[in-house]
């Protein structure tokens, strides 16, 4: 039996790619059991069971788990945690919400944003917006909860044979003090920002919500996901789930094209793991050029359509 348990992130129908990335990060600890909390998790469990490095998949089906609220899932994790020395989830808003609640119920420490699991007691993680990396030793605890920094790891691929799926029941008192009301998701045909191979992002330099069409057009020509700086989101140019950075999404696309983004450290920390950073900025002194692999000084409204025409698929 594995000693590491990974809590799957999913939307009820599909496994989120963050789960497969977290799994890769946990590989140094040996085989990993994956647990799926859902109303009906069969499809998600099948996806999880196919991944390489999975010991078994625990399927916890219950109407209580339809929205995977932290207050409802955390007691179930605590109830099933005994045999495991490491309980992990992806460091997405799902994992960040849930992990500390589970850790506190277990009375154990949590290591956030693990970028390297050396063994079950030693981890490396970023602090100060990624400006410092530290080593955290948790020997003093017999168990630990982790959130895995998904941008540090490639998604695990399918293994040769599927892991067993084990229907599981938990005996925990579940609270009713927290109720799901609604989710307003931006319907988008574009690749998901956190999984996209290419990302096109706009900043304050784009200037308005209407002008953001320039960013969307370029993204669509390149088949890319869309991102933004906090300044662009705060100004209302685009929805908040597009924010990249310390307090937004941490991403690792193969190619990141930043247009009209100055390159504040809080933004850069979100794209440090990108393969190639391309920056378009009219100010040749913009700090983004200090980290960009390829920079072009110029007006984004002039350059974006021409880049689209030249690279368009």
């Amino acid at each position, binding site marked *: 039996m594995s000693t590491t348990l990974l809590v799957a992130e999913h939307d009820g129908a599909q496994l989120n790619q963050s789960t497969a990335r977290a799994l890769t990060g946990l590989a140094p600890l040996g085989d990993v059991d994956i647990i799926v909390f859902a109303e009906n998790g069969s499809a998600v469990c099948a996806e999880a069971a196919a991944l390489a490095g999975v010991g078994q998949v625990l399927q916890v089906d219950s109407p209580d788990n339809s929205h995977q609220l932290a207050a409802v899932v955390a007691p179930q994790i605590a109830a099933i945690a005994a045999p495991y020395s490491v309980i992990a989830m992806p460091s997405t*808003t799902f994992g*960040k919400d849930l992990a500390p609640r589970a*850790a506190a119920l277990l009375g154990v420490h949590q290591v956030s944003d693990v970028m390297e699991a050396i063994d079950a007691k030693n981890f490396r993680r970023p602090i*100060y917006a990624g400006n*410092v990396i530290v080593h955290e030793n948790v020997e003093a605890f017999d168990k630990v909860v982790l959130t895995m920094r998904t941008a540090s790891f490639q998604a695990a691929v399918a293994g040769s044979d599927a892991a067993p799926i084990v229907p599981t029941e938990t005996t925990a008192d579940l609270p009713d003090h*927290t*109720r799901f009301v609604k*989710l307003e998701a931006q319907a988008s045909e574009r690749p998901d920002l956190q999984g996209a191979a290419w990302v096109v992002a706009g900043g304050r330099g784009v200037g308005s919500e209407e002008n953001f069409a320039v960013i969307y057009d370029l993204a669509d020509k390149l088949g890319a996901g869309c991102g933004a700086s906090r300044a662009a989101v705060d100004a209302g140019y685009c929805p908040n789930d597009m924010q990249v950075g310390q307090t937004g999404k941490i991403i690792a696309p193969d190619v990141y094209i930043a247009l009209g983004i100055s390159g504040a450290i809080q933004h850069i920390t979100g794209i440090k793991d990108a393969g190639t950073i391309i920056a378009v900025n009219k100010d040749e002194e913009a700090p983004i050029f200090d980290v960009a692999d390829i920079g072009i000084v110029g007006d984004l409204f002039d350059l974006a359509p*021409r880049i689209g025409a030249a690279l368009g698929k």
Partner: protein
Amino acid sequence: MKIIACVKRVIDYNVRVQINRDGDGVVTDGVKMSMNPFDEIAVEEGLRLKEKGVATELIAVSIGGSESQQQLRTALAMGADRAILVENDAPLIPLGAAHILLRIIEKEQPGLVILGKQAIDDDRNQTGQMLAALWGRPQATFASALEINGEKASVTREIDAGMETIEVDLPAVVTTDLRLNEPRFVKMPDIMKAKRKTLDVIAAASLDLPSIPNVVTSNFSPPPTREAGIKVESVEQLVDVMKTRGLI
């Protein structure tokens, strides 16, 4: 209803953080310290709920060395009614902070506790959730809108998939995201007035806390740096470089 807003003293977000010579910490001597930006938002939200008549008292609470009084004075100048400093110089993990905050809550019986979603020094993003678990109460993390309706709160949360709304029974814990509000600026006369407000100092050791093991943080090192690359003059040149590098 009483509201507690949590306030952590951190290195100002504009400071370029330096690792110390021994590699076991960061340089804090002579470095500008501020209230964690997310905690300013927490204090501001508490003030707005008071101004709407939803809350009767706003208490700012900090855990830290005596220097943290500065940040509590800022919270008082913003408009908090009183402040509590739990003096603690020992290293503190979020589980420890949550246990301390729980003691304060047991004493004050607030209807709402607002924390930042994360402290920008350690970037852990845990304390609010842990506190909610220990207290056995709801949590609404990453809040970008908050509405109190009698014994319930409706909270909009910024999550990866979009905007989620949940309803929680009070008392509850809320953690702030950046777009919840824009904190007010402190005015000179308010700073003077804040000096006369109550700031109680309690020793952490007096709180009858469970013993919590510590974690050892070491090997402070800079992240792998990205070297500045090249600048190209034209889109044609960009395409050429991308071809050479096998990107297209």
